[in-house]
């Protein structure tokens, strides 16, 4: 019995070492708009391939809905590893930030010239999907 308790305690301690989810709470108006959009297109959207992209645009923030399945690089490097999520209704959508795209290590490229320094793989992300622009107080701008 003691051994079982010991084993359970060990298991729990290992479990606790894993990083917890960091949940972002967007302003209520933003979450409402996202929720409305997702429920209206519930039939055509595959929720398990959706993520949110958060970027700063001057004094404002912009949140974009993105479908990540098109890019294996983004899926493998960011989506599968991120522990930042936004809760919209009962769904936790993975969050990709502007900093993730700019600074995540996507791997190296061979040097352009012989003996030169290795290059870094960079991604240019253009999203044309559902987007909301809002300020720090939660007011919707676009």
């Amino acid at each position, binding site marked *: 019995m003691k*051994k079982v308790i010991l*084993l359970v305690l060990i298991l729990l301690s290992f479990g606790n070492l894993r990083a917890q989810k*960091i949940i972002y709470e967007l302003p209520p108006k933003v979450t409402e708009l996202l929720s409305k959009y997702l429920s209206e297109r519930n039939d055509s959207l595959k929720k398990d391939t959706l993520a949110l992209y*958060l970027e700063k645009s001057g004094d404002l923030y912009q949140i974009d809905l993105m479908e990540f399945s098109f890019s294996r690089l983004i899926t493998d490097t960011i989506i599968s590893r*991120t522990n930042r999520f936004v809760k919209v209704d009962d769904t936790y959508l993975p969050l990709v930030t502007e900093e*993730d795209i700019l*600074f*995540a290590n996507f791997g190296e490229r061979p040097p352009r010239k012989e003996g030169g320094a290795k290059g870094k793989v960079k991604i240019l992300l253009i999203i044309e999907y559902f987007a909301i622009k809002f300020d720090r107080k939660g007011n919707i701008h676009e």
Partner: protein
Amino acid sequence: MVLGRTFLGKQIPIIKLVETHLILQLKIKDSMCRKLLLMIALLALTNRLIAQDYLEYAFPEKVSDEIVNYINKVTKSEPDAGFYIILNSENEEGAYKIYIGRSEKGNNSKKDFLLANTNRFVIMDSLKVPVILDEDFQFVAHGYGTRGDKIVPIRMNIVGELYFIRFNRYGKVVETGW
């Protein structure tokens, strides 16, 4: 007269029985221990694999050099010092600012939550420094409070002077200071 029990038709003296019992018990304990150790090793290995599942950031070379220089300078006088980075995209497009903070456990439990759970790290010269994003402060709620009739999330801000490095999209360090 020999005191003992009959086992497979043979009389076994008590002392032998006790020895056998002890050996059996030791063997059982030994095999249990081995199983337990094996399970711990497997769990540790699994955990190690999981723990490696972080998002690695890579800053421009000159920015990394500045970070390493600052950390090396501090650790010369305080070898046990721990560090973290706050990454901030400035309002001006293509301008970024890195703050380097000293991680002292227990000072700010809300910041500790982010430090313990951020899975963004920058790795430079065998240093693995956790990265917190400016948005973490803006959008992560650390409990709830009331403002008038409304229930509002409690946000966190870092107060105090931190060493900063400002750089642009081309990786050029524009300014450093406190």
